[in-house]
């Protein structure tokens, strides 16, 4: 696992609101049912502010930035 911060999703909490993909399309796209698919690897430094905003905006607090990609 490469060093750095990774986006992780609590898949039970996630209800597919889709705000994360609106705010961070560089790293997050939605599947055919509206649930996020995250690009693999750490979040590049220049996208960290956007990633933090996406985390803060998730209505069900399902999105997080973690030091390791413990959960996908």
């Amino acid at each position, binding site marked *: 696992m490469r060093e750095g911060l990774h986006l992780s999703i*609590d*898949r*039970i909490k996630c209800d597919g609101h889709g705000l994360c993909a609106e705010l961070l399309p560089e790293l997050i796209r939605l599947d*055919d049912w509206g649930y996020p698919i995250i690009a693999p690897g750490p979040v590049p430094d220049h996208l960290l502010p956007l990633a933090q905003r996406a985390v803060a905006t998730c209505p069900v607090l399902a999105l997080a930035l973690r030091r390791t990609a413990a*959960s996908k």
Partner: protein
Amino acid sequence: MSGLRLLAGPSLSSGSETYADHVRRLGAATLAGRALIEALGRSGLTGRGGASFSVAVKWKAVAVASKGRAVVIANGAEGEPQSHKDRLLMTTRPHLILDGAFLAARTLRANQVVLYVGEEHGSSWAAMERALDERPEAERRIARMVAAPHRYVAGESSAAVHLVEAGIATPTTTPPHPRERGVASAPTLVQNVETLAHIALIARYGDAWYKSAGRRGAAGTILITITGGVKSPGILEVEAGTTIEEAVAMAGGVSEPAAALLVGGYFGAWVPVDKGWALPLDAAALKAQGMNLGCGVIGVLPATRCGVCDTARIMRYLAQESSAQCGPCFFGLRALSDAIGRVAERGTNRDDLARLKRWAVEVQGRGACKHPDGAVIFLRSALSTFADTFASHPAHWRQQPA
């Protein structure tokens, strides 16, 4: 093979072995505590519930965190529809399982033992309950029976913990794993009943004895369930490393020419027979080939049956068995099941084939538990094993779904 181990002793048709007979036949376990964990580590024993996780690693994690309040769950949910080996063990050798569970409790300083038995497995429940009644008071005092709901995911370890704790058999987000934080936040060992039975024997005879069975570099014995196109389907105890061809011969051989094998049950993978016969029944060896022993189910698909139709039927089941918590699993497996169902029912169409291939990759790794992963790995194996049939499936089920 030279001899049975788990299934040694009185005839299986004579029912449960009593505690008195069990003790007379096998004596008491000699290893416990640190020495037992070390022996388990040297034995290389891995879990027989499906995940093939190292027993010693799990035990060490629980032992370190226990502080005298760990919980042991003997997992006899056996939700895999094709598997019957846990039920056979619970009904005929319940005291091997209980030995393993109470050895775990002593070694891990646990203060609770839960016997988690599938609610639909009536004779297993009765045998385990009767066996528990025969145990010494000190063991009975810390043990109780809990019914596992009749759902595929009920045997998943976090779902087992969730059920014991809150009465809901749905998986929870990991980490933390149950071995770190399980029932009532206490470190919890969730161990399949067959695994516990092996532990009961390793605690008596040691790891060198355990490894004295096994072929082609593999160690120990395995309970497997052989289903489908064989003359005598059923449960066998085989030496690890036995090839599927040898195991099928032990089950009387094929009843008609076979086309493909389902290795590892519904969470396993299809392989064409020409590649499948030589596969060794051993968790590590199968993993090295990108496969999975799972709970030891081997299905033999006769050449007269349609792999696409059988896969469609199993996908429908797996979609229904999603616990509906995670979107990619709940919606994804349903969509996959619908798409393969259309191929089976109405014939091949390019759009559904493209969807199947794309979704089977996209869904993976996007559930709290491994249910969606198991389903799409199984589906992808079908897409490659039955590629020709997928490409030109006629417009009707070749076999009606069971």
